[in-house]
């Protein structure tokens, strides 16, 4: 498992590159690699911009049926999200963006698990399985 800090824009690029390497090794198709790398980019940026920085963990996982996939966990110790359902709505934005980052990232992966409480940071775990 690789742990990568997210403190600068360069770190976001490094998370993307690492997810790409692991996704390719896992046997994801080029389109699925692109989707999971794009989702990782959104979530890493969120951790940086909204969470004040955080950590990404990238690992290979195997399903009960023997399929392999890439799992990425993002954690930050930022202010957290007061209304998770609202934050996951297309077009809802806390700032200057289009509000597609979080909701878009969810569409691009197979599993998406977000835990957040105001004041105690945010954790997002996503999985993309090979087909």
């Amino acid at each position, binding site marked *: 498992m690789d742990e990568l800090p997210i403190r600068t*824009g*360069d770190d*976001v*690029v490094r998370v*993307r*590159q690492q997810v*790409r390497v692991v996704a390719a090794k896992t046997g994801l198709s*080029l*389109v699925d*690699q*692109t*989707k999971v*790398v*794009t989702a990782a*980019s*959104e979530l890493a*940026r969120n951790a940086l911009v909204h969470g004040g920085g955080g950590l990404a963990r990238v690992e290979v996982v195997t399903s009960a049926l023997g399929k392999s996939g890439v799992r990425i966990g993002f954690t930050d110790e930022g202010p957290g999200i007061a209304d998770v359902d609202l934050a996951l709505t*297309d077009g809802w934005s806390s700032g200057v*963006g*289009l509000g*597609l*980052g979080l*909701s*878009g990232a969810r*569409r*691009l992966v197979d599993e998406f698990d977000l835990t957040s409480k105001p004041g105690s940071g945010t954790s997002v775990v996503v999985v993309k399985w090979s087909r």
Partner: protein
Amino acid sequence: MDRVPILKIGTTLFVSIQIDLQDESVVRLQEDLADELAATGARGVIIDITAVEIVDSFIGRMLAMIGSISRLFDAETVLVGMRPAVAITLTELGLSLRGVRTALNAEKGLELLNGRA
């Protein structure tokens, strides 16, 4: 932070993105292009993204803004060379890149600009 170079050929500005774009680089490109459009009076901008492996919502929004900004300088922006996997991902992400024209490659992008009345 890496910067993306801008080439002027005739009345067209050419940008070929060959780096792994971080947010600051794409914001810088937007500013550099606006400066360049104002200074040169170029009528068109071609942005080649053949080498770009992902376009996420931030990069996509910045590219769409470059299209809007160039229109304020009476110039048209054409995005060329998008990879199929990027096109599929952008659509699923929900980004339509309204305001930016697209062409298959730089040559077709140039034809599009030259065909402009």
